[in-house]
């Protein structure tokens, strides 16, 4: 993958969006990224940190349906 904040080729549009949102939330993107990537997301908006960490949350899957395509 070649895109990504902090990677050699950035997505400029995402960077602009992120800067705008961080500024509105009273922080700035470099500070937020440093906090997020350090594993100690203090001093930044809790919602931003929660979004960053959401993928790590273990989800209890309830009994459900595993569907297959007809004929599969």
């Amino acid at each position, binding site marked *: *993958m070649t*895109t*990504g*904040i*902090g*990677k050699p080729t950035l*997505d400029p*549009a*995402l960077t*602009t*969006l*992120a800067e705008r*949102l*961080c500024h*509105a*939330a009273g922080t700035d993107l470099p500070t*937020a*990224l440093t906090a*997020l*990537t350090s594993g100690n997301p203090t001093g930044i*908006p809790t*919602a*931003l*940190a*929660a*979004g*960053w*960490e*959401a*993928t790590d*949350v*273990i*989800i*209890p*899957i*309830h009994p*459900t*349906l*595993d*569907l*297959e*395509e*007809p*004929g*599969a």
Partner: protein
Amino acid sequence: MTRNLFDLGQRLRAAHTGQPVEIAAYAPVLPPVNPIACEVDTDGEHIYLTAASDTATATGADRAALAALAALGADLTAPHRTLVVGTAREAGLLASLAHQYRGDPAAAVVGWWDQRIDYPGTEAVHVVTEAARRRWVLGVHPDRERETATWREWLGVTGTGPQALLTIARMTASGSTLLDLLSAARADADSWERHQKRITAGRDWWMPDSRIDAAMGLVARSHAAEWYESLRMNDPRVALASAHDGSVVPGTVVAVTDWEAIIEADQPLSRLRVDSAVEAWRGEPIDAGGGICLNGRVQAATIDTNATLRVTVGRPDRKIKGIDVGSRLCLRPASVDSYMQANGRSLMAAKLFRGSNWIAGRGAPVARRGTVPLDVVVAAASD
């Protein structure tokens, strides 16, 4: 604002790792049924199609495009199939082609797909970019997620053309499906059968709806959207995000009687209006989809000087049991029951066919004043 920041956090994480971040624990769409995938484009004068099923490919422009669809099995006399397209714009192009050559046998099938695309959760049409956005977030600006090429790149799909669309559609629909989503398939099957019968009976598929049909269609589409949104909130990851826009309100019970419970919200953030029907599950947002431990209506929502939000839920169906002071729970809007919706539509249809209903062309509408919530006014203004 907090939801925007939550979404940004997920997006930055995806950018940092170079991997899509899952935003749904369950597949948000049904697996495609014997799909026909289409790439559709136009130069303003002609419409070009490249299509594929699992076993064949076909191409064509204008009328030949419809012939290509027919060659792949878009047939009114056969069981319905899923149309897979990259964007809704491409489905729109296909629909305009069908209207242009409306006597073509495949046009009637395209006409049906064009109807069903308005029903969220449908298995009749799978719009790859829209469905994938309900499952993952990518480390790019949201606008780039509206392009099929972005999804190909991030999901590691090496092929191109309609075969790549099929691959992405199957990835999006893989794994456990949201419980109850299957009722969308039943609605599709019923709709296909009605469509077949109408055309067999000699009715042209392109004929505009009668006023009553249009009114009922509008309600049915609205119901489908409400039902799908409600269903999605049973997905723990969706609930987790919804806690940041006030659609889900996690909190702690601070007072409870047989008929009323007061919940102190974790954040002063709630979209649950007074008198709206609500329900709650025990635990945290990630416990969504389990049993409901409380239902009723919001009796009051107050914020004190410490910005603490308390929501009072009363008028439950039955005495409140099993909830104590200190219990953790999450409030959400009451689940939408598709059977109740269907009953409501039946009642509405009966009203439309009798009396002096102005929608049915009898009498004139009567002006009536009523209270409209601010968010409805804002949504109408932005439309």
